[in-house]
């Protein structure tokens, strides 16, 4: 009897945890997109007003934030300082490496990759235009992410708990 109750509690706890983790992904994504927009705006001021080189600018940006998307900037700066890559390749490699640690999806990844294609191969004006375009796209993604968060977050939580309860009832 004790074993049965203990097992049921374990199953319930595990399924609730799965629900919480899935819901956490939905609530993390809009935050990360917002942080990314802030960082891109910082990058824009870095290159227009302070005329820093990309490696220094990215290093500075990555230190300004605790968010997990700061990893992209940190990795790119490291790769650029190590040498052997241009900005475009370094950004692409960093995004592909760092995307696993974030809650961003494929669409966001492709926006970031297309931002990298233009990175470092035009003058300041072209760079600023590229940043503005990326910011606009990220804003749209953020709205979408916010909508899907509203739709899915509470559902995932309750689905986890209720699914666990159903399994317990059926197996007991």
């Amino acid at each position, binding site marked *: 009897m004790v074993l049965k109750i203990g097992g049921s509690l374990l199953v319930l706890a595990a399924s609730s945890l799965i629900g919480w983790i899935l819901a956490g992904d939905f609530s993390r994504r809009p935050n990360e997109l917002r942080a990314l927009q802030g960082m891109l705006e910082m990058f824009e001021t870095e290159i227009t007003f302070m005329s820093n080189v990309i490696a220094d600018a990215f290093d500075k940006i990555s230190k300004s934030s605790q968010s997990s998307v700061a990893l992209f900037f940190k990795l790119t700066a490291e790769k650029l300082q190590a040498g052997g890559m241009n900005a475009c390749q370094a950004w692409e490699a960093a995004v592909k490496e760092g995307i696993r640690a974030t809650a961003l999806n494929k669409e966001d990844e492709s926006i970031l990759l297309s931002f990298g294609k233009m990175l470092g191969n035009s003058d300041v004006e072209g760079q600023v235009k590229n940043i503005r375009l990326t910011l606009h796209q990220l804003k749209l993604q953020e709205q979408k992410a916010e909508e899907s968060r509203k*739709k*899915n977050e*509470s*559902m995932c939580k*309750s*689905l986890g708990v*209720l*699914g666990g*309860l*159903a399994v317990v*009832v*059926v197996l*007991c």
Partner: protein
Amino acid sequence: MGIDMIFRIAAIGILVSILNQVLIRSGREEIAMMTTLTGVIVVLAMVAKEIVNLFDTVKAMFQF
């Protein structure tokens, strides 16, 4: 058989109805439908043995 089976079926019914509400609220009518169907099938599988039992009893009753 016994009272615990009835309680179990009742619990499944309550759970399925709440799940249904949650899924419909978040705009997934087709998954809600599937959940209901799954609940019905699970309960049916649980009850099938008892129904067979009932039929056997009725058959034995009318076989002289």
